[in-house]
């Protein structure tokens, strides 16, 4: 199965619950908030309540939220925009704070006078503009709701300067009067710029939209270089899962909507953040200990790993060993009964009876290194697999040419296998983050054991597939690869589903 299918494909398609308030229906113009709930696919670990769209397509949703708050609070749209912006565009979040102390909130967000305007001054009579110090007819003066007025030319200069000089933060510009914190909104910007500097007004509007995307917690820019697509959750409940995977077709990039990182199931966003922080802090030690090369356990010549498979064969002595545990590969065979046992960390290795601080620290470091080593190994293997994926097309062409009656669809299995490999390496990588944070309480001991069993299976079949897919084309067995691909996919889904179920039990 192609990797992008993973988030759309479903073998038990289920109706997705949609909350009343935050429901977003992109398929029609957003006029009907109670439209039929979307049917969403659900595959193990990845819920595709997420869509990619160009920024402009978010406009209706932004307007809908504005309209909603405008009506509920009975305030001008411009005020609602400023209020929502300060509350991550969540109506609930805003209303909760608002009803505590409306006046305080309006003042804090710079929209108090927008909602309680001061009397408008007459258009007759001559007054001095505080900016240019020239006298103007009242009709040539334009005022903010806070009653601070300036001549039209100075307003234009002020707004143009704000958009040009302040950039995205111009959506938070305040009244030109010194010490006044009333916010300059779309109304003033439109009055000042729309006619004379339409391109600046367009820029202001795009900054507004940008602030919407960046401050609301259900949207995120695609992290792809120069990509202007936005990932957006279809509903609030779609945001409640820890692993919200978005996939951008344009840059062939998957990312987590919540934290923006690479999809990291089964580990959660918080665990991943802690892990990354830890790896940053300890990277020097870890790097020092885990150099890029290892010695062959038999002949001690240095070996650099240049392919993804962990089954190593020393060029010099032909000895076979496992890259992860450096043990004999024969121990990893099914017939020895000890198939791929190296995913387990045994804390008893360090002698648990030694309770000194130094020994504890050493054990903690060993524990971390155990997981980091495997995390790192799969990360590297993932890179190899990605590199290999790029070269796959050329291999496919060769494979097709090698047989007389082969069609393109007959060689596509190679690409599928490779994509599956990348996915598995990624998931395996994050299983070690997940496992690192699984503490050994009684309740979790059993869970950990089962998790490690799943992990072991996935690891074992991933290695198999990795080896198969790296074989020379002449030895390539299509049925074998196709089967392995399917099996490995099943194991990957199993482990994600297992974690999902266990976490679900915790929540109850």
């Amino acid at each position, binding site marked *: 199965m192609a990797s992008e299918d993973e988030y759309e494909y479903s073998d038990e398609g289920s109706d997705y619950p949609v909350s009343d308030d935050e429901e977003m229906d992109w398929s029609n113009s957003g006029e009907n908030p109670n439209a039929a709930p979307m049917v969403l696919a659900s595959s193990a670990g990845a819920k595709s309540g997420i869509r990619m769209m160009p920024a402009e397509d978010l406009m209706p949703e932004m307007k809908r939220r504005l309209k909603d708050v405008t009506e509920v609070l009975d305030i001008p749209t411009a005020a609602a925009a400023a209020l929502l912006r300060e509350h991550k565009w969540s109506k609930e979040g805003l209303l909760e704070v608002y009803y505590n102390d409306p006046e305080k909130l309006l003042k804090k967000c710079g929209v108090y006078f927008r909602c309680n305007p001061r009397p408008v001054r007459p258009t007759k009579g001559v007054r001095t503009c505080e*900016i*240019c*110090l*020239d006298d103007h007819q009242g009709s040539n003066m334009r005022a903010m709701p806070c009653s601070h007025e300036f001549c039209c030319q100075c307003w234009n200069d*002020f707004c143009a300067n704000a958009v040009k000089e302040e950039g995205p933060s111009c959506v938070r510009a305040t009244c030109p009067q*010194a010490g006044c914190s009333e916010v300059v909104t779309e109304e003033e910007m439109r009055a000042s710029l729309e006619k004379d500097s339409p391109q600046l007004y367009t820029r202001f509007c795009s900054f507004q939209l940008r602030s919407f995307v960046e401050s609301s917690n259900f949207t995120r820019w695609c992290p792809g270089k120069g990509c202007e697509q936005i990932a957006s959750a279809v509903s609030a409940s779609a945001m409640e899962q820890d692993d919200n995977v978005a996939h951008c077709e344009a840059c062939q990039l998957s990312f987590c909507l919540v934290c923006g990182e690479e999809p990291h199931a089964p580990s959660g966003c918080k665990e991943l953040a802690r892990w990354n922080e830890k790896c940053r802090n300890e990277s020097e030690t870890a790097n020092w200990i885990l150099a890029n090369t290892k010695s062959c356990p038999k002949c001690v010549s240095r070996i650099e790993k240049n392919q993804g498979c962990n089954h190593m064969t020393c060029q010099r002595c032909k000895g076979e060993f496992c890259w992860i545990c450096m043990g004999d590969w024969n121990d990893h065979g099914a017939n020895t009964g000890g198939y791929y046992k190296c995913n387990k960390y045994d804390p008893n290795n360090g002698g648990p009876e030694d309770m000194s601080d130094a020994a504890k620290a050493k054990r903690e470091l060993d524990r971390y290194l155990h997981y980091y080593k495997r995390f790192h190994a799969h990360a590297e293997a993932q890179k190899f697999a990605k590199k290999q994926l790029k070269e796959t097309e050329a291999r496919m062409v060769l494979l097709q040419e090698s047989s007389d009656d082969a069609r393109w669809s007959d060689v596509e299995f190679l690409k599928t296998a490779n994509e599956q490999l990348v996915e598995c390496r990624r998931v395996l990588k994050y299983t070690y983050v997940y496992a690192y944070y699984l503490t050994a309480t009684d309740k979790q001991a059993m869970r950990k054991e089962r998790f490690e069993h799943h992990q072991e299976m996935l690891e074992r079949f991933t290695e198999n597939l990795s080896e198969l897919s790296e074989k020379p084309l002449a030895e390539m067995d299509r049925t074998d690869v196709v089967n392995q691909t399917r099996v490995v996919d099943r194991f990957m889904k199993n482990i994600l589903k297992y974690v999902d179920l266990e976490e679900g039990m915790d929540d109850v």
Partner: protein
Amino acid sequence: MASSDGLPRRIVKETQRLIAEPVAGISATPYQDNLRYFAVAIEGPADSPYERGVFQLELFLPADYPMAPPKVRFLTKIYHPNVDKLGRICLDILKDKWSPALQIRTVLLSIQALLSAPNPDDPLDNTVAEVWKKNEAEAIRRAREFTESFAMKGGTTAASATASMPKKSC
């Protein structure tokens, strides 16, 4: 006399008013060869360690003034938690709190007020601020010493800075 061609009306008006209605204890005189560049002298406020001192500053109005704030710097050495060794000033209205409705006059008044009420909690010079917070008496003593050494008549500065001063860029 340099011509005022191309000088915005607002700057001309401000300058005229500064000369016609000077603020007590503050003088600001534009250079003849660059009317956006001012020689400023501020008298140390009474009941402050800067009392009886006269502090020289330079003030420059950038091209986008009044949409952008003026650039101001102390030329006279001063012991103050919000002024660093290069004479740069930490004052909100010279940065993010600038408003085009403020003027040279209001900026200079704010600087004078800063001399009356140093704010060691928002320091530019950490060592000075540290002394100010831990031992205010000592800080005031040092500030007075600086004032006597650098800001009194006959010291290193001349309050009568005028037209023929060397060109300076900001």
